């Protein structure tokens, strides 16, 4: 872009929304900037943006949180296609041309795909003592190595072998539990994406795209699962969120 046009403060994009004249929520953007709604004539999609010059050179955690708060405020009362954190155009005009006008069709389809839907994330983990007890009780290879280690606690080779056996047993259990949880959640929502759990005893993180009307039903399904697995697995639920995991990637791939 031409160097003479650097007068513009830049256009930081948070999200795409339906262009329906609804007023913006009363929150500020990154760096305390004011939110604006920008669109092009004839478009049904609008972008929620703010000036980018309030962004510090090194973005910090507070900037991420400011971005998150804008998205949470938007998803509270409208459909949202969240944009990846940190996306800036040189000016509103360039954003309009390169994003809204150039991708009118795909963006409208994306917005339709998330109509009246939100994302709920379910993070599942094992209770360490419970799953360890299970594995020791059910796997004779693990038990055998445990007995070896009991007698020779300083034998590193034996400890590694015990851990290796344990790890294999845990992997098998984890993939089965993740599969079952996914299947149960699938029944109560539109779509799911599954990723690995975190830490040694994580099971899975399952993002659910769910219609706002069926939110209660999904939550009840999660509670029933948590109840059935009490003491064995923990369930943490995050949301409602904008459908981050379901519009993730370049427009050409997800639009």
């Amino acid at each position, binding site marked *: 872009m031409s160097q003479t046009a650097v007068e513009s403060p830049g256009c930081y994009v948070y999200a795409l929304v339906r262009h329906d004249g609804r007023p913006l929520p009363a929150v500020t953007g990154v760096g305390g900037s004011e939110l604006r709604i920008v669109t092009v004539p004839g478009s049904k999609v609008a972008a929620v943006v703010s000036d980018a010059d309030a962004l510090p050179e090194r973005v910090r955690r507070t900037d991420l949180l400011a971005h998150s708060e804008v998205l949470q405020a938007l998803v509270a009362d409208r459909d949202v296609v969240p944009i*990846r954190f*940190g996306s800036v155009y040189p000016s509103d005009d360039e954003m309009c041309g390169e994003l809204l006008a150039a991708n009118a069709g795909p963006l409208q389809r994306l917005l339709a795909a998330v109509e009246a839907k939100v994302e709920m994330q379910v993070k599942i983990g094992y209770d360490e003592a419970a799953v360890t007890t299970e594995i020791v009780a059910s796997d004779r290879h693990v038990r055998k190595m445990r007995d070896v280690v009991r007698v020779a606690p300083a034998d590193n080779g034996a*400890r590694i*072998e015990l851990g290796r056996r344990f790890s294999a047993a845990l992997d098998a259990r984890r993939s089965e539990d993740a599969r079952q949880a996914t299947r149960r959640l699938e029944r109560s929502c539109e779509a799911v994406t599954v990723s690995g759990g975190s830490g040694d005893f994580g099971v899975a993180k399952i993002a659910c795209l769910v219609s706002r009307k069926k939110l209660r039903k999904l939550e009840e399904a999660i509670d029933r699962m948590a*109840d059935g697995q009490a003491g064995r697995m*923990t369930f943490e639920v*995050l949301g409602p969120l904008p459908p981050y995991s379901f519009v993730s990637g370049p427009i050409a791939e997800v639009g």
Partner: protein
Amino acid sequence: MTVAQRYVAQQYTGRGGPSGLADVLEVLLDKGLVIDAFVRVSLVGIELLTIDARVVVASVDTYLRFAEAVNRLDLLQGSNPKTLGDIVEGGVERGARSKAKGAVEGAREGLSSKLSGERAGQRS
């Protein structure tokens, strides 16, 4: 009844919950529509962020940690019989926790209270 811990993103951004906040930030960095923007803000300075190791790559280190987990279990179940006091305490704690749903502080349960709770369940 045990209820899943529930977080609303807005609520806990202010509270600085241990695992929840990291989860939201991770989503923000990782997910969302990727547009052909002119600039993507550089993410230096986000080193404050703690993102758990995602997929655990099996390594000698992991194996040793697992061996340790089996060992810990031995210690807990071995020469350490639970007293009635422990069992009752475990039960009470558990009840209180399920009432405090949504409280980030309630997310972690002690290993020993878990075990005593379990035994109380088996005996009844």
